[in-house]
């Protein structure tokens, strides 16, 4: 059991361990609830450690390849064949970066759920599905195969739907889940159709091999349009954003936090398709421009819709749309500038901003949803008008909320500021108007959260409630810790985590080389 062996096999283990645990959970649940809770938390912690362990090596500059079922995991292309035949897991900086997000958010949400989800008959299934969401996200993020991406997209979709509808005795939960499922399955069928179009021409399913063979025929362009449309739908950007508030607001809070990470997995897939599959030879400025427009619209529509909301989770869901806009803006500006040689350093910088914002957003939006869940846990309402004076009794929740709110508004000591600054700087190179709009949205975000804070936590004490249970506080503390850590050392984080991820996306040749060339 040496570390080299573990490192080589960790891509497969990262998928296999939660999957095994998911199959075991219903069986353990029959014997003891306590054992099941301990088991789930231990699995989530092991998962986090494994992901960080692999990430440490990947960020050192190694891209990991793992060929499923082959005699040698590192040779993707068999000796007599010219192309990869089996499914290849390909872990580069960007993939494992998203893996860190997924594992961390699931860990926090898992701990939080111990007390949050009321003890009832279906809780064994709740944890099974939570582990399956983790499997789906990690499967999407580590895979190097188009059809496999589709399969894990479906795992993720179905597990998410089931958990959105977890409180199925409320009609609106089932309804939000139905909407989510319709949109997601149409998106998934688009992806499948696009995969079939690519397969028809090149007889390949491996992304790296496809990227090296692709010829930009009309069919490839159709496939690109379908893929982009599908993943834009799934990540909750503007033209197809209407499922987001419905689904986010009805799910249990811990699941909403995971849903944020899950829609970012779709965002990751979008970036992977644009950069690694279609890559540099495509007209980057066009795609970049499209992403910028999607981003701006999402930012603006999200924040303006958020302002009048009375339901705390709907409000936060609209902010999630607006924050997705920042990520699209950052990466879109990056693409746009990379196409112009004189600005390419700013291009990388913009992408770093966009990618850094992904992890920041997962952390602070996750934290905010968890705090809203804490309020719901005590008051049994999501309506802002019925809240008030909670600052007196729920001190820790209030503190966590302040940290999250300041981070989302981009106030200096917290992590949101670091990533937004990178985006502002680079967007300024494209057009000053972009930066101004981005800042304006930021201010509106702050205003909106000040309003929430005021109506929920300030004022006279009207509700006689206690602080939430310890495990919920622990779940929130995990995310707060990450936020503060990133806020205090943004330079280190950008240099050692975000930069390798951005580099991995921008460098298509290395991505192809890892599978086909080696």
């Amino acid at each position, binding site marked *: 059991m040496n570390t080299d062996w573990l490192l080589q*096999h960790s891509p*497969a283990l990262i998928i*296999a361990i939660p*999957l*095994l645990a998911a*199959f*075991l959970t*219903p*069986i353990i649940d*029959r014997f003891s609830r306590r054992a099941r809770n301990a088991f789930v938390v231990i699995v989530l912690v092991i998962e986090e450690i494994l992901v960080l362990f692999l990430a440490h090596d990947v960020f050192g500059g190694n891209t990991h390849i*793992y*060929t*499923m*079922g*082959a*005699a*040698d*995991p590192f040779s993707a292309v068999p000796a007599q064949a010219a192309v990869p035949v089996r499914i290849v897991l390909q872990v580069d900086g960007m993939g494992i970066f998203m893996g860190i997000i997924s594992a961390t958010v699931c860990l926090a949400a898992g701990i939080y759920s111990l007390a949050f989800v009321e003890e009832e008959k279906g809780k064994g299934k709740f944890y099974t599905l939570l582990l399956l969401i983790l499997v789906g996200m990690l499967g999407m993020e580590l895979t190097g195969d188009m059809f496999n991406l589709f399969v894990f997209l479906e795992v993720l979709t179905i597990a998410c739907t089931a958990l959105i509808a977890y409180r199925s005795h409320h009609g609106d939960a089932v309804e939000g889940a139905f909407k989510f499922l319709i949109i997601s399955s149409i998106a998934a069928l688009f992806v499948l159709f696009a995969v079939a179009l690519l397969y028809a021409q090149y007889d390949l399913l491996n992304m790296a091999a496809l990227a090296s063979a692709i010829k930009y025929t009309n069919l490839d362009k159709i496939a690109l349009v379908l893929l982009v449309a599908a993943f834009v739908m799934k990540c909750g950007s503007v033209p197809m954003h209407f499922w987001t508030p419905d689904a986010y607001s009805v799910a249990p809070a811990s699941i909403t936090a995971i849903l944020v990470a899950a829609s970012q997995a779709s965002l990751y897939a979008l970036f992977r398709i644009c950069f690694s599959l279609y890559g540099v030879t495509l007209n980057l400025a066009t795609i970049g421009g499209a992403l910028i427009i999607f981003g701006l619209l999402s930012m603006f529509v999200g924040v303006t819709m958020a302002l009048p909301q009375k339901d705390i989770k709907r409000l936060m869901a609209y902010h999630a749309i607006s924050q997705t806009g920042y990520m699209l803006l950052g990466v879109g500006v990056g693409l746009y500038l990379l196409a112009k040689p004189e600005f390419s350093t700013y291009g990388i910088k913009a992408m770093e901003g966009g990618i850094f914002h992904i992890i920041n957003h997962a952390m602070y939006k996750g934290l905010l949803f968890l705090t809203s869940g804490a309020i719901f846990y005590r008051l049994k309402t999501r309506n802002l008008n019925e809240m008030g004076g909670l600052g007196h009794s729920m001190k820790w929740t209030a503190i966590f909320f302040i940290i999250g709110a300041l981070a989302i508004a981009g106030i200096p000591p917290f992590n949101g500021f670091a990533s937004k600054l990178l985006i502002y700087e680079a967007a300024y190179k494209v057009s000053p108007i972009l930066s101004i709009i981005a800042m304006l949205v930021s201010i509106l975000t702050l205003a909106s959260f000040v309003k929430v804070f005021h109506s929920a936590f300030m004022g006279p004490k009207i509700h006689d409630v206690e602080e939430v249970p310890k495990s919920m506080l622990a779940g929130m503390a995990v995310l707060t810790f990450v936020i503060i850590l990133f806020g205090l050392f943004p330079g280190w984080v950008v240099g050692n985590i975000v930069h390798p991820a951005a580099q991995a996306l921008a460098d298509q040749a290395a991505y192809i080389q890892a599978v086909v060339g080696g």
Partner: protein
Amino acid sequence: MKDEGMSVIVTTIAALIFPAIMIFSFYVIMHGHLTPGGGFQGGAIGASAIVMLIVAYGAKNVKKKVSDENLSIFESIGGLVFVVVGLLGFLAASTFLYNFLVGEPLFGTIPPFGSNSGILNSGGILPILNIAVGMKVIGGLASVVLVMALAGGDEE
């Protein structure tokens, strides 16, 4: 018609052909590596046998014999077998899901290249995975239909 199920003729015939369908399902699963078919197809056939019982006898009567909980445990075991075989592939040999039984006495006979009449004892891990998936599909589809039938039943 609600809970009691259908007439005597229907229930008797259903009970008679139930074992035949299950045997056919097992045949399709076991010959998955030789003829068209496999775990999913055979599993779907087996699940349809149970669905036939649900239709003929009524969901409540079936639930007395096999509860949906038990069926979903059955399914979990199928999934576990799949993952464990995958993990064995990588503990015993090289990678996750490696076909480590090729060349071994159990299921390991390599058939002669080209047309042959089929050797049941071949296929490496494929027959085992077929059985695992078959268990999964029988348990899964039957339990979901059972739960839906029960959910639709008690309207009042």
